[in-house]
């Protein structure tokens, strides 16, 4: 039996320990905010925060996070008012919106690590997250805004 804390709640799993965390979150725990985009850690749509680090849940097995604390987009802030979320809305970042949960989680992890990133640091830290609609200019601006106070 694998136990993991997701958004502050204890969850357990007694199935395949190799099951990617992504599919546990989406299909077993019903937390569909975390998205499937590539399955190979190439696009970042599935990004969640494990302890204080951004990870790609599509290549992280449920066993890898046993005993650890996972935060998904649903658990980032109780009212959805994390500075990154607020900045995202202020800048009107999303087009289709599908990649945005992963982008937001990546940005939140970046700001935990580096509260005042430069534009180049933002670009580097966010480069693992693909947006096919091409919202990059706004993503960069929103992360900058979140880091300077929304």
């Amino acid at each position, binding site marked *: 039996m694998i136990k993991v804390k997701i958004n502050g709640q204890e969850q357990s799993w007694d199935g395949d320990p190799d099951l990617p965390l992504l599919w546990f979150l989406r299909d077993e725990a019903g937390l569909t905010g975390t998205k499937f985009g590539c399955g190979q850690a190439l696009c970042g749509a599935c990004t969640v925060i494990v302890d204080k680090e951004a990870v790609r849940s599509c290549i992280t097995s449920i066993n890898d996070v046993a005993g650890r604390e996972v935060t998904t987009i649903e658990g980032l802030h109780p009212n959805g008012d994390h500075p990154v979320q607020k900045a995202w809305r202020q800048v009107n970042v999303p087009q*289709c919106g599908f990649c945005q949960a992963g982008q937001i989680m990546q940005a939140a992890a970046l700001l935990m690590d580096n509260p005042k990133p430069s534009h180049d640091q933002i670009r580097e830290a966010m480069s693992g997250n693909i947006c096919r609609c*091409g919202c990059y*200019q706004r993503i960069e601006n929103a992360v900058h805004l979140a880091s300077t106070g929304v």
Partner: protein
Amino acid sequence: MNFIDNPGKLRGFEKNIRVEKVSRRSILKGLGITGGFVLAAPVMSRQAFAYETGAGKMPHGVVIDPRVFVAVAPDGTVTILAHRAEMGTGVRTSLPLIVAEEMEADWARVKVEQAHGDEVKFGNQDTDGSRSTRHYLIPMRQIGASARTMLEQAAAKRWGVPATEVKAVNHEVVHGASGRKLGFGELAADAAKESVPSIEGLKLKDPKDFRYLGKGQVGIVDLHDITTGKARYGADVRLPGMKYAVIARPPVTGGKLVKFDPDAALKVPGVEKVMQVRGWPWPSKFQPLGGVAVIARNTGAAIKGRDALKLTWDDGANGKYDSVAYRKELEEASRKPGLVVRQEGDAEAALKGADKVLVGEYYLPHLAHVSMEPPVAVADVKGDKAEIWAPVQSPGGTREDVAKTLGIPEGNVTVNVTLLGGGFGRKSKCDFALEAALLSKELGAPVKVQWTREDDVRHDFLHTVSVERIEAGLDKSGKVIAWRHRSVAPSIASTFAAGEKHEAPFELGMGLVDMPFEIANISCENPEAAAFTRIGWFRSVSNIPRAFAVQSMVGEIAHATGRDQKETLLALIGSPRIVKPAVKDMWNYGEPFDSYPIDTARLRKVVELVAEKGEWGRQVPKGHGLGIAVHRSFVSYIATIVEVAVDDKGKLTVPRVDTAIDCGTYVNPERIASQIEGAAIMGLSVAKYGEITFKDGKVEQKNFDDFQVVRIDESPTVTNVHIVPPGPDTPPSGVGEPGVPPFAPALMNAIFAATGKRIRSLPLGKQLEA
């Protein structure tokens, strides 16, 4: 904002109006609302378009009926239906916003509901072709104005005053003389008893009184849900008892399953069943390819199970498709005469007599859509009834195809439209929903079919592959006197019928035969090209290779004549005029030429605007270059300037992009900017990386590692969008697609300016590193 409100310009469109006698019950059911604003009398008479569009000629035309699109609840909540699919353009906000504007509803008290697929009830629902705003601006205003009029009439009756003395203002109706006011909610029940006013009697708002339209200050309705993970896309649908499926499909288009061994797959924890999926012979429009499905308790188990399948395929006739060999075929075909699709003057003779002839062969490979959300659908088939939840651009078409595939009446099929995690034309084809329907029927349980990214890349309806060959004949003064353009590319028509070897009128009309330059001798030709895989619409469609070729050739002419790119471009566009190419059955994005002519004054204007705002001719550092391109598509006019920087290792960056767009009258400039910013990214992806290749009939790429798209660290440092203010008589035109085509040629012209290297073959790849 300017709208045409001049009734003198009305054109007859009566035959296209549809009045559906929808029962009260079905309206209530459709809107999921109890009580409220539901009307009895269907009194629609004619569709009073102030300008003509092609909306009425779309399947099922246009429905202008407030009873279908609007409901007012007793608590004042106004519910407006969005009948088009949201894939990132903002249409799910923009169309209801138009209704709210005309209706004087307070946007804060408006709830948007997504319409299910029912074109008889809602009119055409195909969300493609950059059409939604251009076809629905006036109908949505009329729907809003009808609702407003009924609320005003109800208030006037309540107070016993003439309707002319009352006015709806911000969610209430006001009697100015007495100062009395009644909220929309208080009037809902009475308004429901009013008859629907005739369209020609409707008084539309004066644009100067607009609160929302043209302002760009309303965020998209899904903004909060998207940022909190609550927004529901196709894959987010969960039903009780739902099974999860992935499918192994034939690796070659038209291939067949010979045998399969499910044993190892069935041993994977969580896998419940392995079953065959029916496939259709190629081409079969959007019917599934067939294959073997693995059914499991979650998607991860299904994928692992699929990996364990032992499969033997017969590749069939397309097993020899090879991109390297096929490119040679296309190039050879482009060097020989083909079907003449536009002819003015005598291009052959003029080329022979020219002082100089420039020849460019421009190659664009197949492209995959790779929307961030791979295809996915949920189906629940019970007996002769089917319910689908899917991110589809064409819910009406999906409903038809599900009914046909299952052999049940269309009325028994419900198609619920989720948010689309990107579409770009891929989700106009509902094959993934048909797969889910077939599996659910067989399983007797609800099922979700999830495509992996590998499935998406390998089994897409790809953008066509093409060679565009242009010969430009110049006289001694450098003036272009002859233009011969041969376009060779397998047609989208090949996905619908076997043996199609010529491009369809709608493909020829995307930058080939509508080429707007003022040249005396023009020949456009379309040599044959056979298809060996599924070809489909990709955002901007044939405009991508055409703009790349035509606008690159402009850069080549500028260089050959020692002139400025922009001046060369304006000289080729020529005098301000309406271009009327000598083309039979000329296609104009489905729009009448009267409302949407090829207007070189507007084409010139976007060039001049982008040159001014984008500081054309500015000094740039060493290793940088500026390039410009313009293209009319989806009846909009777009010009782009790209500044590129190429370092000594051939690595490219894009410090600045400027784009000017003339899309006529517009609704939401903020979303126009986001579409154009995104188009620069997609344009850069096409130019830099976009390439799907085939070997032995199989796609050689699989995921974002070998089919790359642009990431944030290589995106333009800044993209500026400049929107042309509409003239008083300018109908709305496309926004979603037209931003993409000018990007690649502007970039290639910039690269030439920076390095002296002319790139005629996309993608750029490592060509600058050589």
